[in-house]
């Protein structure tokens, strides 16, 4: 096993696209790191640089103690699971898994033992003689995983491995990947644009935007204390509400005619400063008339266990998540939030105050 360390890594493609700009972070040995961000933010590019499939324009990538910038993918001792699985179409499932071991001159008996072991773990024993085209998407996914684990590499790399599966299978495979990574203890870097996958899988979560890192940390810390407006809006579903507000004093902001209390210790600004106030839909509650901020109801979405009430506070759109049956019946109601639930952001820099 080994850690993965990136120092000021950047990538400029032919034609001048700056896909990654000065990214630095460390994935500790044995931990699960998820790179998440919107489409085109450079996640795959970063992963492919770790794999050795893209040249590194600037900075260094280390696997363990070794700088791997100029080392071929074959010699980096990594395994990768691709979005389209990239199985070898002309080989049986067995040969797909054995290929990497044969390339490294592993003895035949050991290849058989390792492939059998991986097939058992992933429950693909019945398919070992089949070609990839004779498998379902979920089975192919397992073979791709099998091909990665038989090698016992230093690092696993995943590029959106679940995005071609249906919703149910995706949840199931997500749990399996987590379990597998825990039991094998292999350092992993996983790319996704699905924030649920990101939150659930990661020990270390890296949120990227436009080629740069927005925030790194434990997923729950990012969720509780997002460092930028971008991170705040990206993590959490339904997404955080953002309301224009004005600082009244160190403990109070005014929003759309009413006021909300801010917890002590929340960063704030001088009185009269405009700020953006972020509140998650699940942190809002319905207040008694005359006690909160007035919201006009637009429509209600039923999610089963909960309901999403979509409305407007002044001009700003707003979503509130309540337990089923608690949604207000009229076309307007009032809301309140506990002081701890408020996140204040500087509208100019988008940084947390």
């Amino acid at each position: 096993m080994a850690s993965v360390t990136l120092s000021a890594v950047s990538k400029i493609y032919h034609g001048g696209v700056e896909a990654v700009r000065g990214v630095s972070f460390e994935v500790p040995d044995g931990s699960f790191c998820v790179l998440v961000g919107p489409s085109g933010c450079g996640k795959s590019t970063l992963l492919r640089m770790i794999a050795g499939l893209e040249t590194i324009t600037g900075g260094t990538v280390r696997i363990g103690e070794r700088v791997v910038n100029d080392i071929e993918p074959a010699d980096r001792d990594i395994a990768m699971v691709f979005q389209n699985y990239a199985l070898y179409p002309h080989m049986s499932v067995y040969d797909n898994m054995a290929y990497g071991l044969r390339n490294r001159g592993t003895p035949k008996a050991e290849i058989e033992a390792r492939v059998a072991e991986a097939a058992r773990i992933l429950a693909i024993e019945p398919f070992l003689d089949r070609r990839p085209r004779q498998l379902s998407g979920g089975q192919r996914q397992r073979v791709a995983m099998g091909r990665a684990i038989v090698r016992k590499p230093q690092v696993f790399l995943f590029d959106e491995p679940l995005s071609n599966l249906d919703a149910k299978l995706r949840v199931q495979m997500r749990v399996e990947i987590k379990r597998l990574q825990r039991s094998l203890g292999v350092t992993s870097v996983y790319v996704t644009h699905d924030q649920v996958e990101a939150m659930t899988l990661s020990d270390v979560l890296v949120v990227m935007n436009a080629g740069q890192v927005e925030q790194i940390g434990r997923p729950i810390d990012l969720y509780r204390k997002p460092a930028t407006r971008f991170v705040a809006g990206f993590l959490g579903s339904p997404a955080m509400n953002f309301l224009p507000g004005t600082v009244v004093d160190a403990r109070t902001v005014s929003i759309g005619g009413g006021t909300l209390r801010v917890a002590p210790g929340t960063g704030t600004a001088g009185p009269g400063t405009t700020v953006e106030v972020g509140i998650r839909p699940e942190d809002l509650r319905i207040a008694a008339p005359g006690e909160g901020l007035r919201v006009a109801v637009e429509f209600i979405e039923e999610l089963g266990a909960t309901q999403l009430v979509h409305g407007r506070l002044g001009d700003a759109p707003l979503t509130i998540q309540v337990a089923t049956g608690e949604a207000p019946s009229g076309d307007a109601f009032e809301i309140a939030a506990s002081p701890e639930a408020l996140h204040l952001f500087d509208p100019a820099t988008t940084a947390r105050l």
Partner: protein
Amino acid sequence: MEKRATFSNRYLPYALLAPQILVTLIFFYWPAAQAIRQSFMLEDAFGLSSDFVWFENYVALFKDPSYYQTLWTTFVFSGSVAFLSLSVALLLAVMADAEIRGATAYRTFLIWPYAVAPAVAGVLWIFMLDPSLGMVARGLKSLGLDWNPRLNGTHALTQVVLASAWKQISYNFLFFLAGLQAIPRSVIEAAAIDGARAWRRFWTITLPLLSPTTFFLLVVNIVYAFFDTFGTIDTMTQGGPAKATETLVYKVYSDGRLGGDLGGSAAQSVILMIIVIGLTAVQFRFVERRVTY
């Protein structure tokens, strides 16, 4: 899935097919039938009368050692042309694929030789390889090799192989390039991560995945070398020296047209027809069985 078109008038489909069927009948079936009929006939020396002689023409053919000589020449010729044009085309396609995934200007450039008529290709190569005029010939001579395709049969065969293979390279190149570009990049990348270097990747991934293309091209190239190289041979060597470059097709021409042996020549044509039908059948069977993975 079966697609069926429906016509309101039931004679319309026949009317639409008629011209094509007519052309096939007049220009293929009729001459073919003529050839088969002719192959059972023996003409007298003046071409005034002919007798039905059953399989005598075929028997004579298979007793003639020069026919086996030609058969052998044809195999050597076709094998060399197919091997040379396939391997050079594959090499070029791999290099092009690595450099430019999807650029078309380069492809257009490489297709040019294919548009050159066989006779022109022959002349072009004559200019390069002619013992007194050609620059390649002079180069070879300065290296101490007495290059003389007019007298040396091996040299002559080499010459027609080069010219014929050269003409086919661009065609093969296009198919190989298309085949290479159809291989998902991630499959090659997965192999690289799996510890395979470039050379090993080529042998264990690229080449097997190209095998449907390669097989298709192999048959096409053999058919080409058998039947489409007449013009090239005729301009360069006329089958000589001493029949060293005489292929089956050229022999049909030289025996029938120049030698006046119409029956024997027709019998040879019929054998060629059977070969072409055989190759096509192999091709179809294979294509139906597995083209895609």
